C-alpha cells in the first residue's frame, strides 16, 4: 500500500496513533472526556517526538504565495509521480523530503492554477501561483454528477465541508443556518439525541406536511441529521427546477447533495478533531416577584370571585419569612439548580491516504451529549470507511460503509418535564431536607417526574453500504453503476416506573401514587435499497462542449414496526419485556409498509465557446403510491446561461468584472409525499367486547382516493453571478417563481361524510422570491477579511384551493387558516382594540363574553353585526418567516481567526400560549413581564386585568401574537493556529485550538418572555429547553 519506503515509518506511527485514539474514542467507559483527549494528545506528542529519520534524503523548503506574494496556507505540494506530498503551513512555508534531486513538484491550491516546478537540485524553491480566473476550475456537485461552477445555468448554492466543520454543532443542519441563501433552517431544540430541525428551500410548497428537501448523500437518499460533520467534503443545495428536475418526483422541496470525503493519493494522514463543550439553558424565564405575584393573585381573585385570597398580614408574613420550606417561593426551577450545565464532547479521527491503485478514508467519531435536564443524555458513535479501487486504468470500484449507533436516554417524556416546570408546579419545594419530593396539589413536579417517572431509551443502529463501479468504456463515455443499501433499526423502550410520594409534613399521606410499572417497547425496521445506472458522455470539438447523461434508478423502501407492552414488573429495575405480567394486560401491535420508485432520466449540457450555455433535463418517474394508470409522470426542465464577461466587448471590463453571467431556467419537479395505500379503501381493526370477551371488528375509517396522483411544482428562475476584482467581490442574485399545483392536500371534508379525509390533488400554492448572496474578501497584509452575506425574501400565497376551504386548524391556543390569497397556515383570530376602559365603553360595544368588565380585552366586531363570533376572525399574520438573512464574517490576523455568524429571520409572528401568556390564571409560571396589567390606575397596560380560572382574554387574537423577527449571533469562534516552530518539534503538520460559543446574543421581542425565537411549535414553550454551548476544541493534522 505504501510504495514510498521513506513514508513507512511515519505511517506506521500514525496508524498506531490512530488505533490508539480510536480505542479511546470508542471506549464505552469513555468517562472523563477532557482528560482522555489530553492524554491521547500527549501520547501522540511522545510518539512523534521519537521520530528519527535514518534515511539520507534531500529536503526542499520554500514558500507558496499568490502573485502578490501573500502566503497560501494549505497549498498542496506533491512530488510528481509519487504519493509523497505535504501541505503548506499558515505562512505558506513547506518542507518536503524528496528522493530525487531532479524531481518535479506539483503545487496546487483551490482557486489557483496548478503549477509544476522542477527542483533542479535547488534546496529552496519558492512558488507563486496564479489565481485561476475566478475559480474557473471550481467544480460543483449536481444531480448524478458534477459541473464546473462557471458553466452552471441553475440556482445552486454550495458550501464546502471546511466551512461546515468550523461550527461546533451536534446536528449538521445547524451549521447550514445562515450559510445558504434561500435555505431556512428552524432549530426547534429537543432532547439530546433527538433532532427537531426544519429545512425549507424557497418556502413552503405543499400543505400536506412534507416540505423537507430531498437529501442525497453520495448518491443515496439518507437522513442528513447525525452525519459526522468531519466527513463532509462538500454540500450543495439545489434550488431551482433546472437543477432538481433530475430528481423528479421527490424534488419539489429542493435537494441537498452531500459528498463525503475520500482518501486521496498521497501519504497517509491522520487528523484529529475534538472538542469539549458546556451547554447551558438558553432562556430562563423570570418569575414575578413574590409580593407582586401575591398582590396580582389578590386582584385576580377579586375580579373573579369578589374577594382576595391573601390577607395583608399573610402577605407580609410570607414575604418576610426566611423559612422557604414552610413558605416556598412560587416557582424556582429556572433559578435553582434544576437546569444544570451539561457537558458535551466530540472526538473525530480521520485517517486517509492511498496510492494510484487504491485509496481509503476511515473516520471514527464519538459524540457524548449530556442534557440540561436530569437523566437526559445521548451518545453517538459513527464509523465510516470509504474506499476506492482503481482495478484497471478504466475501471474504478468504490465501496463506502457507514455505521452509526445512537443511544438517547431521557425521562419518560422529556417535554413533560418542561410542561410541569412551566405549567404545573407552583409553590413547590423541589426537595425537602429529608429527600422527599415536593409536589403540587395535583401531584406534579418536574424534578419528581425527571427522577422517578421512568425512562425513555432510544437506540438507533444505522447501516449504509454503498457500492459503486465506474467504467470508462471509451474516451468520453463512462458507465456508472451504483447500489446502496440503507437500514435503520430503531428500538425504543419507554419504561414507566411505579412509585409513590408521601407528604413531607405528614408521611402517612400519599400524594402521588403510580401503582403499576409498565414497559412499551417498539422496534422499527426500515430498509431502503437504491440502484442507479448512469451513462455519461462528453465530447468537445471546435468551441462546442457536449455532456450527456442517461440514467435509470430503482428505489425500494420497506418499513416494519413491532411494538409490545407489558406491565406489573417485579421492580422498576427489571426492564425486560418478558418479565412483565403474562396476562391479558400484555399487548402488542405492528404495521408494515412498502413503497417503490422506478425512474428514467437524462440530461444534456451544451456550451459554445464556454460562453453560451444550455441544459435540458428530464425524468420519467413511477411511484407505487398511486393506482395503476397514475403511477408515472414526467418532469422536464430547460435552462440557459450567457457569460457576458467572455464576450469580446467585455474585454475592457475584464480586469474589474472578471465574471458576469446571466442565467435562466424553467422546469417541473414533483412530490409523491402521500401515505402509501391512500388510493385503496382500507378497513382498520377496531376492538370491542361482548360480555367481557374481545371480538374482532373491521371498519373503513378513511376516505379512499383512487385518483390520487403527483403534485407538480413548476419553477422559473432568473439569476446572475458576478465576480469583481479578482474574486474580492462576488455576488449572486436570483429571482424565482415556484408554482405548486395538484397539491396533495388532506382536504377537510364535511364531518357528515363520516370518513376521515385523505390526500387529494387540490389547489395551487405560489412562492416568489429573491435571493442575494454577497461575498467580500480582501487581504490587508496580515489582516484578512472573508465575509459572506445572504438575504432572501419569500412570498408565499395560497393561490387556489379548487373551490374548497378555507381550512381552519387549531383552536383558542393557536389557530391557523389556509385560505386563497393568504400565506399557508396564517394566523387567524380576532382583532383587538386595547382594553375596555369604562363601564360605558363595555355597555356600548359587543362582547365575546357578556360579563365583560373594564380591563378585559376589547375584541373587534369586524363585520359590525353586533356580536363577536367566529365570523369576526381575520388574518393576523404569517407564521413562517418571509425574510431570512445571514452574515458569515471571518477575520484573520496572523495566527488568529475570528469567525462570527449572524443569522435571523423576519416577517412573521409567533404566538405565546400556556402559562407564560395566561398571567397566573391557573397555578402556572407567571412571568414578571405580565406584571404590567390593567388596573384603573394603569389603563395603558400591556396586559389585561388579571382573572382567576377565566380564559376570556386569552382567546386567539392579535394581542397574543409577538413579532417573531430575530437576529442572533449564532456562533462566534476564535481560532489560534499553533506556530510551526512549536509543532514542528513534534512532527505535527498543523494544529489549531479554538474557543466558540453559540447563541451568545439574540435580539427579539420574544426575549421579553425569555422564549427562544427559534422554538415556535406550540407557543407554550414547553418543549425541551434550548441551549447555548461554549466549546473548546482542537484540530490536529499529523
Amino acid at each position, binding site marked *: 500500500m505504501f510504495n514510498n519506503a521513506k513514508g513507512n515509518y511515519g505511517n506506521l506511527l500514525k496508524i498506531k496513533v490512530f488505533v490508539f485514539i480510536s480505542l479511546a474514542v470508542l471506549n464505552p467507559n469513555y468517562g472523563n472526556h477532557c482528560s482522555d483527549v489530553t492524554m491521547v494528545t500527549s501520547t501522540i506528542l511522545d510518539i512523534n517526538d521519537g521520530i528519527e529519520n535514518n534515511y539520507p534524503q534531500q529536503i526542499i523548503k520554500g514558500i507558496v504565495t499568490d502573485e502578490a506574494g501573500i502566503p497560501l496556507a494549505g497549498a498542496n505540494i506533491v512530488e510528481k509521480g509519487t504519493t509523497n506530498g505535504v501541505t503548506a503551513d499558515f505562512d505558506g512555508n513547506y518542507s518536503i523530503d524528496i528522493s530525487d534531486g531532479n524531481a518535479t513538484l506539483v503545487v496546487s491550491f483551490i482557486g489557483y492554477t496548478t503549477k509544476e516546478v522542477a527542483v533542479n537540485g535547488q534546496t529552496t524553491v519558492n512558488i507563486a501561483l496564479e489565481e485561476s480566473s475566478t475559480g474557473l476550475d471550481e467544480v460543483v456537485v449536481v444531480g448524478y454528477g458534477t459541473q464546473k461552477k462557471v458553466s452552471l445555468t441553475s440556482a445552486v448554492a454550495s458550501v464546502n465541508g471546511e466551512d461546515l466543520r468550523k461550527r461546533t454543532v451536534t446536528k449538521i443542519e445547524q451549521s447550514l443556518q445562515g450559510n445558504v441563501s434561500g435555505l431556512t433552517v428552524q432549530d426547534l431544540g429537543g432532547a439530546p439525541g433527538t433532532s427537531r430541525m426544519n429545512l425549507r428551500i424557497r418556502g413552503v410548497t405543499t400543505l400536506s406536511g412534507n416540505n423537507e428537501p430531498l437529501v442525497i448523500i453520495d448518491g443515496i437518499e439518507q437522513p442528513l441529521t447525525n452525519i459526522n460533520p468531519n466527513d463532509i467534503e462538500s454540500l450543495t443545495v439545489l434550488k431551482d427546477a433546472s437543477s432538481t428536475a433530475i430528481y423528479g418526483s421527490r424534488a419539489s422541496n429542493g435537494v441537498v447533495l452531500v459528498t463525503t470525503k475520500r482518501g486521496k493519493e498521497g501519504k497517509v494522514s491522520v487528523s484529529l478533531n475534538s472538542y469539549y463543550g458546556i451547554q447551558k439553558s438558553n432562556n430562563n424565564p423570570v418569575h414575578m416577584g413574590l409580593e407582586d405575584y401575591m398582590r396580582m393573585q389578590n386582584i385576580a381573585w377579586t375580579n*373573579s*370571585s*369578589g374577594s382576595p385570597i391573601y390577607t395583608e398580614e399573610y402577605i407580609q408574613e410570607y414575604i418576610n419569612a426566611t423559612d422557604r420550606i414552610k413558605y416556598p417561593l412560587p416557582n424556582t426551577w429556572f433559578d435553582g439548580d434544576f437546569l444544570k450545565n451539561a457537558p458535551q464532547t466530540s472526538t473525530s479521527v480521520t485517517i486517509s491516504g492511498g496510492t494510484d491503485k487504491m485509496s481509503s478514508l476511515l473516520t471514527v467519531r464519538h459524540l457524548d451529549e449530556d442534557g440540561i435536564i436530569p437523566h437526559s443524555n445521548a451518545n453517538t458513535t459513527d464509523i465510516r470507511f470509504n474506499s476506492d479501487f482503481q482495478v*484497471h486504468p478504466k*475501471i474504478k*470500484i468504490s465501496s463506502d460503509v457507514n455505521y452509526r449507533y445512537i443511544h438517547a436516554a431521557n425521562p419518560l417524556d422529556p417535554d413533560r418535564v418542561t410542561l410541569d416546570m412551566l405549567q404545573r408546579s407552583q409553590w413547590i419545594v423541589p426537595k425537602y431536607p429529608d429527600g422527599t419530593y415536593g409536589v*403540587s*396539589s*395535583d401531584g406534579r413536579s418536574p424534578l419528581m417526574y425527571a427522577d422517578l417517572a421512568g425512562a425513555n431509551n432510544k437506540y438507533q443502529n444505522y447501516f449504509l453500504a454503498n457500492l459503486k463501479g465506474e467504467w470508462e468504456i471509451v474516451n468520453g463515455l463512462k458507465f456508472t453503476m451504483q*447500489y446502496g443499501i440503507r437500514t435503520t433499526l430503531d428500538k425504543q423502550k419507554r419504561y414507566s416506573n411505579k412509585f409513590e410520594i408521601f407528604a413531607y409534613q*405528614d408521611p402517612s399521606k400519599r*400524594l402521588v401514587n403510580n*401503582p*403499576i410499572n409498565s414497559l412499551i417497547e417498539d422496534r422499527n425496521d426500515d430498509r431502503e*435499497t437504491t*440502484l442507479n445506472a448512469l451513462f455519461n458522455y462528453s465530447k468537445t470539438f471546435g468551441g462546442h462542449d457536449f455532456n450527456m447523461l442517461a440514467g435509470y434508478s*430503482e428505489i425500494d423502501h420497506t418499513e416494519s414496526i413491532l411494538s409490545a407492552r407489558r406491565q406489573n414488573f417485579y421492580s422498576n429495575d427489571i426492564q425486560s419485556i418478558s418479565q412483565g405480567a403474562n396476562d*391479558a394486560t400484555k399487548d402488542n401491535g405492528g404495521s408494515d409498509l*412498502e*413503497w*417503490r420508485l*422506478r425512474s428514467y432520466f437524462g440530461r444534456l449540457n451544451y456550451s459554445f465557446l464556454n460562453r453560451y450555455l444550455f441544459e435540458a433535463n428530464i425524468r420519467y418517474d413511477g411511484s*407505487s403510491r398511486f393506482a395503476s394508470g397514475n403511477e408515472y409522470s414526467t418532469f422536464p426542465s430547460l435552462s440557459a446561461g450567457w457569460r457576458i464577461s467572455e464576450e469580446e466587448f467585455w474585454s475592457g471590463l475584464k480586469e474589474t468584472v472578471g465574471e458576469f453571467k446571466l442565467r435562466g431556467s424553467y422546469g417541473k419537479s414533483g412530490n409523491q409525499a402521500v401515505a402509501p*395505500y391512500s388510493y*385503496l*379503501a*382500507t*378497513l*382498520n381493526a*377496531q*376492538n*370491542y*367486547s*361482548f*360480555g*367481557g*370477551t*374481545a371480538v374482532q*371488528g*373491521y371498519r*373503513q375509517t378513511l376516505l*379512499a382516493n383512487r385518483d390520487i396522483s403527483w403534485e407538480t411544482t413548476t419553477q422559473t428562475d432568473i439569476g446572475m453571478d458576478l465576480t469583481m476584482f479578482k474574486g474580492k467581490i462576488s455576488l449572486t442574485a436570483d429571482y424565482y417563481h415556484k408554482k405548486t399545483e395538484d397539491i396533495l392536500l388532506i382536504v377537510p371534508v*364535511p*364531518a*357528515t*361524510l*363520516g*370518513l376521515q379525509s385523505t390526500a387529494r390533488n387540490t389547489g395551487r400554492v405560489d412562492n416568489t422570491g429573491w435571493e442575494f448572496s454577497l461575498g467580500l474578501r480582501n487581504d490587508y497584509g496580515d489582516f484578512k477579511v472573508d465575509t459572506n452575506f445572504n438575504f432572501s425574501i419569500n412570498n408565499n400565497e395560497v393561490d387556489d384551493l379548487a373551490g374548497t376551504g*378555507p381550512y*381552519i386548524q387549531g*383552536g383558542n391556543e393557536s389557530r391557523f387558516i389556509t385560505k386563497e390569497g393568504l400565506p399557508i397556515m396564517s394566523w387567524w383570530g380576532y382583532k383587538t382594540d386595547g382594553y375596555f376602559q369604562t363601564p360605558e365603553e363595555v355597555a356600548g360595544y359587543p362582547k*365575546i363574553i*357578556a360579563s365583560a368588565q373594564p380591563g378585559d380585552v376589547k375584541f373587534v366586531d369586524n363585520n359590525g353585526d353586533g356580536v363577536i*363570533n*367566529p365570523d369576526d376572525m381575520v388574518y393576523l399574520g404569517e407564521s413562517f418567516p418571509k425574510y431570512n438573512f445571514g452574515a458569515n464574517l471571518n477575520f484573520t490576523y496572523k495566527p488568529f481567526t475570528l469567525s462570527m455568524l449572524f443569522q435571523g429571520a423576519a416577517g412573521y409572528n409567533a404566538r405565546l400560549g400556556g402559562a407564560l401568556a395566561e398571567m397566573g390564571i391557573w*397555578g402556572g409560571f407567571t412571568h414578571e413581564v405580565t406584571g404590567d396589567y390593567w388596573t384603573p390606575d394603569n389603563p395603558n397596560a400591556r396586559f389585561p386585568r388579571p382573572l382567576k*380560572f*377565566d*380564559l*376570556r382574554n386569552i382567546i386567539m387574537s392579535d394581542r397574543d401574537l409577538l413579532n417573531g423577527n430575530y437576529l442572533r449571533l449564532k456562533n462566534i469562534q476564535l481560532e489560534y493556529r499553533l506556530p510551526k516552530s512549536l509543532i514542528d518539534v513534534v512532527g505535527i503538520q498543523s494544529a489549531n485550538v479554538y474557543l466558540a460559543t453559540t447563541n451568545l446574543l439574540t435580539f427579539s421581542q420574544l426575549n421579553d418572555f425569555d422564549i427562544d425565537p427559534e422554538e415556535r411549535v406550540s407557543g407554550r414553550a414547553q418543549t425541551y429547553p434550548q441551549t447555548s454551548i461554549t466549546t473548546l476544541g482542537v484540530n490536529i493534522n499529523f
Partner: protein
Amino acid sequence: MKYLRHRLLIIFMIAIFANCDDNFLDTPPNDRIVSEFFWNSDNDAIMASNALYPFLLQDAMNFAMWDAMSDIGHVTLQWRQESIIERGFHNAASPTIARIWSFAYEGIQGVNIFLANVDDFVPASPSLIERLKAEMRVIRAKQYIDLAMLFGDVPMPTSELTLEESLVLTRTPVSEVWDFISSELTSAAAVLPTTASQTGRITKGAALGLKTRALLYAGRYNEAAEAAKEVIDLGVYHLYPSYENLFTYDAQNSSEVILDRQYTQNVNQSNIYDLTTPNSLWPQTNDFVPTKLGVDIYKMANGKDIIDPSSGFDPNNPYSGRDPRLGYNIFTIGSVLPNGLIYDSRPGSGTGDAVGSSENSTFSGFNVKKYLTPEDSSNPNNCGINLILLRYADVLLMYAEAKVEANDIDQSVLDAINEVRSRPDVNMPAISGLSDQAELRQIVRDERVVELAFEGLRYFDIKRWKIAENLTGTIFGMTYENNDGNLTTIELTGFNKAFNKDRDYLWPIPFNELVLNPNLTQNPGW
C-alpha cells in the same frame, strides 16, 4: 482478458441488483384489509358489525359530561370545553360540539356502508344477516336521536354517502328525523330477538326502549307510552334488587340492563374512574362534581322535601335520613371512600378532597360515586365496567312520564313510579291517590333525577322540559359547619352557569360544516 473480467464485474452488478419485474411498482399492503377483498362471508358481516358497536358511546367522557353541564353537576376544570359550554361561552367553533357531531356522522356513515355492502355475498345464514342489519340500524337511529336533540334539523343521509354528496347535504326538519328514527326502530324491533345471542348485542327491547326515548324526546307521548308498554310487556326486564350494586361489576348484564356500552379491561376500556373519582383517590383529573342542587333534590326517606318543615331534615346532619340513592350516587362529608377512608371535603380538612386544596379538588364539596368501583382503582384509565345506556327503571319512568304528559293518567302510572321507588335498597314510600297532571309531572321528573343522576340523561331532560334557563346562575356547594361552629354554604362566586333560552336549546351547527357545505344553515342565535 483482464479488462473483460472487469467489464463483466460491472455487468454482473446490474444483473444482481437490477429488478426487471414489470410489477415492480405493485406493492399491495399486508398490514390492513382492503375493502374490495372484504365482504365475503357471514363472518365478515359479523366483524363489520362489531366495529360499529363502539358508536353506542364514544367514551366515558361522553357519558359523564352531560350531567356536569346540567343543573345537578359542575365541570371542575374551567379550561375544559364542557366548562365553556356550562358557562354559555361556546360558539360554533367549539371543539366539543364538532366532536359530538362528527362522531354521530361517523357512526351513520359506518352503518350506511355496512348496509350497502352486506348484501354483496350470498349468506350462509340469511337470518343472521337480517339480524345484524337490524342491530346496525338501531345504532344509526341512536346517532340520530343525539343529533336531533342537540342540533334540531340535521342532514339525514340514510345510504352510503360520497364526498360530493356530503358537500351539498341540506338539513332535514327534525320532525322528519323523529319519523325516521321511529320507523327504523319499529322495523328493527320486528327482526331483533328478545334475548341477545351474545351478551351486549342489541335486542328487541333495546330498539323499543330507544324508540320510547326518541318519541318522548319528540313530544309524541301517546306513541312513547305505547313503545314503553311494549318493552314492559316483553317480560324479560326486571329491576335489579340493589341500587347500590347496580353500577358495579356484580350487576353487569343483569335483567335491568336493556342497552349498554360494553367495556373490558385491557381490551376495550374506559376511563370513567379517572374522570369522576375524588381527588384524594386519584389526584389527576376529577373533572365532574355534583352541585348543591343535585344533592338537595333528594328527599327525606319519608318522602318529604328537605325544605318541608315537617320533613325532619337536620341542617347539622344533612345527609342522614335521606333517600338512600343520595348515598349511593354521591360522596358527601362522612361517606366511606372505596379505599376505606372517610370523605372529608371541608376546606382545610387536610385531605385531597378539601375544597380549595387544589385545582383538581371538588369545588362543591361533593363527588360522584356512581360507577366508582374498587376494581378500577388501581388503573383508573383501564376500567372495564359497562356503562348502561338504557335500563328498565328508565323505561318505567318514561312510561309514567309519557302517560302523564298525554294526560292519560291511570294506576299504571303510579305503579311504574312505585316500582322504581320500591327497589329493596331504595324503599321509598309509594305514591298513591294522585291524578293531577302537574303534580304527577313534578313527581316523575324528581324521580328521574334521583334515580338516573349522572347517567348522561339530565342535560337532555332539562332541555326537553324547557326548564334549563331556570337552573342557571351562581353555583352552590355543600353546607358545612365551619371552625366557628357556624353553617356555611360553599359558593362558587364568579362562576356563572348560563343558559340563554333564545339560543341554547339547540347547539350551533359546527362552523367548519357551514364553511364546507353552503347548503347548511345555522341555528337561530348563533
